[in-house]
């Protein structure tokens, strides 16, 4: 790539970064409680701009032997700039009352659980269900969730992604040896089979996908269960019923971002049992069994390799310990007060089970009360 074209693109990226800083600083009427977030974004954008200037001012900028490395640096800067433009800047630029309502709800929840980090910014017009973007500290929720309660535990799962981003190095270092031991043991067991090489490769893939992906998703499931208990189990069942038919995929030799829903339900139940709530675990298990008895999908012959109980239970214990170590309050220690959100999420599911016909009206009264509290 000609150095002139490349250096021109780098300078344009710097211009974009400066435009974003100007745009950020021209936003009017941002609620005062969000000023720290705007200031933090301003700091990050200025850091990126300084780093791009440093690249341009490097005496070897555009030198042929370094061009490929500098091009790759430019790509990383470009990715960062895009992420901040498309998410926190766009959110703050278009900030509305529903975003603020959810921010206050998230802040209240974070205070009630003793969340040790800055509460996330909330984007109340998600186009992909609940989601999070840990590097920007943003959680997105669907447009109409302000009128509902039963899916709120999925916000807690997304909060788990942000916590994991803080803890992942230590966490994975502690968990990985046990996973590696399991994989090594399984490899030995299948070593004499005819298709041994295929199995070895599949076990390698299993270790890779667990370490890089599944452990994150399981972490968030356990985190949410620790904080809102059975409400998260019911919420998972609700989500699976509404969106999923392949409960036992990915299986052996497959790699996706999320582990199988069956395994996710098992780890939620294991967490509840580990926390001593066998009654809630049994109630959810019974409903799950009813559901799985009518779905067509069944586990294939190698599914059992993928999510062994021992590994799931070890992971549940480790995440619970991690939550305790950072002084997060478990659901069963939350006060049963009207505006205590972990308790409200549990109560909402209890209400739904006990009186489904009248639940919508009950839910409306509760969300109206929350709106009054947080306005």
């Amino acid at each position, binding site marked *: 790539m000609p150095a002139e074209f490349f250096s021109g693109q780098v300078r344009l990226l710097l211009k974009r970064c400066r435009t974003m800083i100007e745009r950020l600083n021209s936003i009017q009427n941002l609620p005062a409680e969000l000023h720290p977030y705007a200031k933090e974004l301003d700091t990050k954008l200025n850091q990126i701009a300084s780093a791009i200037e440093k690249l341009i001012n490097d005496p070897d900028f555009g030198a042929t032997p*370094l061009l490929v490395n500098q091009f790759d640096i430019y790509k990383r800067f470009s990715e960062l700039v895009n992420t901040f433009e498309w998410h926190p800047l766009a959110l703050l630029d278009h900030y509305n009352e529903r975003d603020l309502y959810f921010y206050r709800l998230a802040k209240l929840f974070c205070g009630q659980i003793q969340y040790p980090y800055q509460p996330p910014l909330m984007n109340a017009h998600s186009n992909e269900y609940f989601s999070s973007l840990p590097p920007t500290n943003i959680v997105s929720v669907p447009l109409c969730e302000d009128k509902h309660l039963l899916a709120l535990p999925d916000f807690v799962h997304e909060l788990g992604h942000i916590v994991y981003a803080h803890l992942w190095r230590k966490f994975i270092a502690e968990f*990985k*040896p046990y996973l590696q031991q399991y994989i090594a043991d399984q490899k030995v067991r299948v070593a004499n089979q005819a298709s041994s090489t295929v199995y070895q490769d599949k076990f390698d893939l299993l270790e890779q996908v667990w370490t*890089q992906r599944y452990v*994150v998703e399981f972490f968030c499931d356990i985190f949410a269960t620790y904080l809102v208990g059975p409400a998260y189990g019911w919420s998972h069942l609700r989500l699976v019923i509404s969106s999923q038919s392949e409960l036992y995929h990915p299986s052996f030799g497959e790699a996706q971002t999320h582990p199988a829903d069956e395994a996710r339900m098992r780890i939620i139940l294991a967490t509840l049992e580990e926390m001593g709530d066998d009654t809630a675990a049994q109630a959810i298990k019974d409903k799950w069994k009813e559901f799985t008895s009518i779905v067509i999908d069944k586990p294939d012959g190698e599914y059992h390799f993928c999510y062994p109980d021992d590994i799931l239970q070890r992971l549940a214990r480790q995440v619970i310990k991690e939550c305790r170590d950072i002084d997060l309050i478990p659901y069963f220690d939350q006060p049963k007060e009207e505006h205590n959100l972990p308790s409200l999420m549990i109560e909402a599911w209890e209400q739904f089970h006990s009186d489904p016909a009248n639940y919508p009206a009950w839910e409306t009264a509760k969300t109206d009360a929350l709106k009054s509290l947080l306005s």
Partner: protein
Amino acid sequence: MSETGIISQEYENTAELFRAINQSVIVLKKKHFNLTGAAQVTNEDLSEARKLLTDLLRQLIEELEHEPSPLLTEAATEATSLQVPPFFIKRLQERHSGEMQWYLKDLRELLQALEEGRPLTGDLITYLDELCGQLDAETTAIHRRLWRK
């Protein structure tokens, strides 16, 4: 739940490693090609760059050799500052599947030169560039999955 949370975590981990490795490669290349900025590269910069690359290469060679890993102690694992994303290993396995022994030989040769503080040859610089290029490709691929689904 959406895939954004998990993919953005993958991206962060891979991009962070890429930035560290790419910067180390730049330091070594400035010296190797005696570029204008080489005068500003200190011995400490060089030493840090070699150490980082040595740590990376040791981990890569161990993973690619497929030797059964002993149960690592918690302390030993935590002490490892570099966390190599498993799917980067997978990428290298796939890219070099037909010539893995040759590839491992190249990586060992590079590791030895870095450990001994020897000047890098043109071939060794090429190996470093290839490695860095694969890490960049992995980072870019994850970013594309994140935003161009």
